[in-house]
């Protein structure tokens, strides 16, 4: 018995070439879609880069592993849309490096959590989840309120984001450290500057209820209150959404 395959595996050069060919197919299927990313991401209004304070909050979100229990991906299922709001668009995570879609929901999806609850609630809930939500299994993150936010690193953080394609300009990067603190300033002294750099509709206030410092709690709550609020998905027409 001598099949074609038997012949092939007895010829080392031919066999090597075939292995390379088949293995590279696997790579191709992973890489090729990235070349079509431009027509995968919807062109929608409202998407903007994250402010430095929101980005700092996002870094804390990643650091604390929130993605292990919370997804940020409302699927195209009626049950998902009924509970969490309009399904997530690709554009809404276009500035996420890395994305926070998640794959497991021990807690609820957070893709549209922004504006659903008050800052006070978020702070109370992050400090002691079971005080406000009976039966919650979320750990407490009270230490965030006692930890000063390291604003100095935000300049480097913006540079890093810009290197992977997030369109932060000179202006953003130069003022990153100042903007981080200014967004959590209860007096909103630099409000106009932040709006000029990042656009309308940015939450500028003291988020954690402690006006004397910019804490990690400020950053995380600023991030959560922004989630899902940038694009007005409900205002989009069916034709713009279907693809």
């Amino acid at each position, binding site marked *: 018995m001598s099949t074609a395959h038997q012949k092939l595996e007895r010829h080392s050069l031919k066999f090597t070439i075939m292995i390379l060919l088949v293995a590279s197919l696997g790579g191709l299927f992973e890489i090729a879609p990235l070349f079509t990313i431009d027509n995968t991401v919807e062109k929608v209004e409202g998407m903007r880069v994250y402010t430095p304070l929101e980005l700092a909050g996002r870094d804390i979100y990643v650091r604390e592993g929130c993605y292990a229990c919370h997804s940020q991906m409302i699927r195209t299922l009626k049950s998902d849309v009924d509970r969490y709001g309009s399904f997530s668009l690709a554009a809404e995570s276009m500035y996420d490096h890395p994305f926070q879609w998640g794959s497991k929901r021990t807690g609820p999806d957070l893709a549209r959590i922004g*504006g659903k609850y008050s800052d*006070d609630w978020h702070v*109370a809930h992050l400090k002691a989840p079971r005080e406000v939500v009976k039966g919650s299994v979320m750990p407490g993150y009270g230490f965030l309120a006692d930890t000063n936010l390291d604003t100095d690193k935000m300049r480097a953080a913006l540079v890093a984001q810009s290197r992977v394609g997030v369109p932060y300009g000179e202006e953003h990067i130069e003022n990153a450290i100042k903007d981080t603190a200014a967004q959590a300033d209860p007096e909103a002294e630099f409000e106009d500057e932040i709006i000029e750099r990042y656009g309308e509709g940015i939450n500028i206030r003291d988020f954690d209820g402690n006006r004397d410092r910019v804490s990690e709690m400020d950053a995380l709550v600023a991030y959560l209150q922004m989630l899902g609020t940038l694009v007005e998905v409900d205002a989009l027409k069916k034709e713009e959404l279907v693809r």
Partner: protein
Amino acid sequence: MQIEHDKVSGQDTTGHEWDGIKELNTPIPRVVTWSYQLTILFSICYWVLYPAWPYVTDFTRGLTGYSSREEVIDILQSSSNEREVSIATLFSLPIDELAENTAIRKQYETSASVLFADNCGACHGADLEGQTKFPNLKDEAWLWSDLPEEIEATILYGINSGHDEERYAEMTAFGRDEILTKEEISELVAYVQSISGQPHDEALLASGTELFEENCSGCHGDGGEGGLESGAPILTDNFWIYGGDAQTLSDTIWHGRKGVMPSWENRLSKADIRKLALYVYWQSHELEE
């Protein structure tokens, strides 16, 4: 290299031999290879029928032209069309008449309680009894009146929510903004405790009364009887959002307060908001049979 036929198993050997040990070349069972071929066939059918392959400017749409987004949009549309019929009664009458209608209450109270627990319970508690900073909705104390249409407006637009139609209420930070001194604030605390029927320091009362009239009665009303138009709480009823003890009262006067309730206009349907307003009203009002 010699391929032999093994009589016991009926299979050939591979031809390899290690110190007299030979290996049978038993093929994978047919059922396994066939199911493998079937999966390949399935994927080819799938490529033809459903969106599959990306190319430079677009992707193949498939013969069915299926889109999960289109599907869910259609499902939502048709279910909201169905719902429209069933919720028509909710908009057939003004909300204050609906609130007093026993049949409406029977029809919607249970489903509204689920809606409340899902959306409002996180702050106000699934039992409506609230918690520190988040008002109890079952007691007799109301910030913006207990009229059903006012409750509905609060849910729609929120309080200090940033919505254009928001209810705005902010208590001044009398201490932090250096309007009152620490001593004056303790005098005010004594007065507020006296009008709410709590033990208090009599010695501070006289000046506290005067300070209250000058600084607080504009919003909280004469003698702290309240003013529903401004959202300033009644101070004489001993119901508290933040707490009525001396320390909390002093903190409140020093730092001010600006509680936030989000606007639900863009998060829930008009019908759901109406149901919630009715539900909140029903939980604190017994209907006359």
